[in-house]
């Protein structure tokens, strides 16, 4: 498809609406001069990235992880320590952190993958807690100051791309935006590869997949490595953006839950966690800003209620329903491709079980 | 006792029963025979409320069972000894029997009924403390039937009476069913051993691909040419 063609196609709603959405995302920091709102946007993008990473193992592969904060934490701690002690630029620290996180993901993942259902979820909670307890109670490893429960405040080393530090929010926003697009691309590539097909087969029915010759352990290990790599990348961004990392905010189980909820509520498809983040994260950020520190966690009432409603009424997540509405909207706008929107694709199966 | 009128049933998309009609009169022993997969177990499941019929009507003594749930149907005196026996493996023989008389009515008569079951199946009395999961196949079948009797049914439906049992045991179980019959309990038997079944029952229905293709007294059916060819290998 050449460029001319795309431009010609922009007269169809199914092309100009996504294009418009992307344009809004790109110019978002210019649309407001309220730093808070840009901050909310950044957190939305960050959660979209983390949700996408989680989705690779949990949504695509059907392995319900409730301990993914550990991988974000490892990425954040590794890059931060390199940044603080070795003056290493976070861009490289990010990769190192992500690799360490991926290795950890494989090490803890491998033995856990033979566990099924709730047992696997319990194991992920257990290793999440182990990482938290370890960091929370370790002040010093050799010459390295881990600062235990207190957490680490990142020093300002200079406002530049090299130090991954800026005096305005916009650069963070664009980094997060690029990260999100890369995450979408990665998930899209996985979903449409043989690997993605195997993962889906495993998530659907592990025994049936095995009988078709799918090496489920190996596939899950790959998925775990990629998933925790993405989490590690997000961890570095988290550290550089918030300038503070600590076990009580980064490693607690509720953080794991929040990451998982973005994926569950969105749906187990490529765009699921993106939609999830755009719906949920503003709620958490708004309550944080409006209610302040006294009620940290109150947004979780809303998250919990949404989760319960989704599981009860829309177990495949919100995306399939949103898609239906979107297709209908496109049809109303006169897009010729979507006139028979009713027959387009049945909703996919999600973690909440099937609409068979 | 029981009238079944044109029931249809399916598992998901797959239709399994097509307009099945049958009847069991008071005190009668009726057989339901057919090849593997013909829909015999499915018919019993619909009758006992384990599976909902898509259409059709089931009546017992004037009461419509079509909309009732399994627990409500047992309460009306229709007991189902399911395929695979479905005992509670981690509970003792006695506890399994007690569960059979969980409902308030049968519970009042529990002691008597247990004595009756023990007199029909003396081995169960010997084993009353043993876990059901550790019984032999024959003993499990006796317990399953005994558990069905505990609800003081007017109609007892037994799925796959002889499946997996040695010939001596089969004979024994049938003689025990004979005893049950004498207590004025109607019986609906599902049996793969067509010859055995037709010799035992008063009447029988032949099910093929979810449809009743033949019915009549045991003797009539034994003489039927189609049946002889298809089921008795004669």
């Amino acid at each position, binding site marked *: 498809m050449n460029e001319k063609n795309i431009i010609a196609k922009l007269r169809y709603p199914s092309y100009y609406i996504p294009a418009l959405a992307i344009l809004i995302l790109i110019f978002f920091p210019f649309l407001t001069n309220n730093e808070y709102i840009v901050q909310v946007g950044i957190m939305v993008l960050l959660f979209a990235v983390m949700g996408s990473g989680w989705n690779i193992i949990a949504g695509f592969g059907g392995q319900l992880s409730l301990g993914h904060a550990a991988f974000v934490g490892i990425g954040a701690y590794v890059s931060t320590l390199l940044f603080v002690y070795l003056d290493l630029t976070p861009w490289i620290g990010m990769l190192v952190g992500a690799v360490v996180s991926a290795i950890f993901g494989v090490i803890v993942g491998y033995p856990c993958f033979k566990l099924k259902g*709730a047992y696997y979820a319990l194991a992920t909670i257990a290793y999440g807690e182990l990482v938290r307890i370890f960091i929370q109670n370790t002040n010093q490893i050799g010459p390295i100051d881990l600062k235990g429960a207190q957490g680490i405040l990142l020093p300002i080393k200079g406002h530049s791309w090299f130090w991954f530090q800026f005096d305005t929010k916009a650069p963070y926003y664009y980094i997060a935006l690029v990260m999100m697009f890369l995450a979408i691309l990665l998930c899209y590539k996985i979903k449409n590869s043989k690997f993605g097909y195997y993962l889906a087969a495993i998530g659907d029915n592990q025994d049936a997949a095995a009988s078709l010759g799918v090496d489920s352990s190996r596939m899950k290990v790959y998925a775990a490595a990629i998933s925790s790599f993405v989490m590690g990348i997000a961890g570095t961004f988290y550290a550089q953006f918030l300038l503070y990392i600590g076990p009580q905010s980064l490693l607690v189980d509720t953080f794991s839950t929040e990451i998982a909820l973005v994926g569950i509520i969105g749906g187990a498809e490529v765009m699921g966690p993106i939609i999830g983040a755009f719906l949920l994260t503003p709620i958490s950020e708004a309550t944080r800003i409006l209610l302040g520190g006294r009620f940290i966690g109150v947004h979780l009432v809303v998250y919990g209620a949404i989760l319960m409603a989704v599981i009860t009424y829309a177990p495949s997540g919100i995306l399939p329903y949103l898609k239906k509405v979107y297709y209908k909207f496109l049809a109303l706008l006169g897009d010729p491709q979507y006139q028979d929107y009713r027959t387009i694709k049945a909703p996919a199966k999600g973690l909440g079980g099937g609409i068979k | 006792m029981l009238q079944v009128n044109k029931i249809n049933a399916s598992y998901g998309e797959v239709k399994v029963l097509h307009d099945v009609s049958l009847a069991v009169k008071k005190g009668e022993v009726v057989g339901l025979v057919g090849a593997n997969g013909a829909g015999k177990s499915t018919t019993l499941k619909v009758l006992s409320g384990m599976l909902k019929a898509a259409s059709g009507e089931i009546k017992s003594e004037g009461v419509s069972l079509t909309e009732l749930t399994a627990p409500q149907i047992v309460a009306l005196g229709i007991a189902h000894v399911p395929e695979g026996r479905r005992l509670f493996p981690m509970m003792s023989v006695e506890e399994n029997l007690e569960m059979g008389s969980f409902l308030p009515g049968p519970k009042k008569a529990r002691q008597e009924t247990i004595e009756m079951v023990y007199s029909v199946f003396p081995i169960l009395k010997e084993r009353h403390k043993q876990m059901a999961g550790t019984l032999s196949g024959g003993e499990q079948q006796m317990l399953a039937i005994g558990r069905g009797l505990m609800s003081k049914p007017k109609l007892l439906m037994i799925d796959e009476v002889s499946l997996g049992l040695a010939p001596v045991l089969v004979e024994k179980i049938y003689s025990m069913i004979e005893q049950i019959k004498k207590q004025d309990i109607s019986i609906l038997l599902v049996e793969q051993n067509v010859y055995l079944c037709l010799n035992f029952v008063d009447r029988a229905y032949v099910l093929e691909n979810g449809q009743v293709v033949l019915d009549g007294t045991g003797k009539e059916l034994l003489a039927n040419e189609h049946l002889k060819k298809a089921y008795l290998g004669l």
Partner: protein
Amino acid sequence: MGTMTEATINGLFMGSLYGLIAVGLSLVFGVMKVVNFAHGSLLTICMYAVYYLVMKANWNSYLTPILVVPLLFIFGYVVQSKIINPVLKREFELGGGHAVILLTVGMMLVMENLCLLFFGAYYKVAQVPISSLTLNIGNIVISVPRMIAGIVSVILIFLLYAFLNKTDMGKAIRATGQDREAVRLMGINDFKIYNISFGICFIMLTLAAALMIPMYYVHPSAGKIFELRSFVIVVLGGLGSLNGAFLGGIIIGLIESVTAQFLSATTAEFLIFLVFILVLLLKPNGLLGKK
């Protein structure tokens, strides 16, 4: 030597309390095969209920169950029948998925954070006369409320055990756990049994809360630490097994109190999760389980 004995006694008392807390989780799993991720927040609710009765109405903590047990039994019954059963029903019909687990995660978030909203993040303590009472035997010091909690917990677990083994309802609950379709053929409504089991889980938690109030702070995530303990305990003892839950409770209580005495509370915490992971990986059916 005194300290070792003291740590062991404390461990036994704490362990049987842990067992009491975990037993409901195990029961619910045994009956409906659901790991209830909201278990800890249920305990939190029970603790608040007992706390307010003690503080606002001046009840003796140990008497609060008279009022709280029936109330929370009904609450549990209704939650199960109105919220969990519909999803469970769908999962039975369509199979697969983690729907019920996720539903309980949602319940946990709602309950825990509603407590935060209503009762605030503050640590509340019900300082009652018995709280600081101790029993001194030689050089061994035993906290009286802890001793009461330990002994009463054993009795309560035994009573539950007797209920499940000696009464028709108890047997029906066990039977439902073994074959939920077969019990329907006995005239037993499986979903009603689920409601009752969840109610019983609440009863056990309420009783535990009454025993705990004299010695623990109440705050919105008070139950959480016990929830994680409970997961460890029931997996250790084998999910669904009541004896297992008691045994697991004792093991965890002992590990915790002995390690905390001689090393540190953190080491104890770390060790508990290490044991958890090892048991999950090596003996997922529990120490007593087959395979």
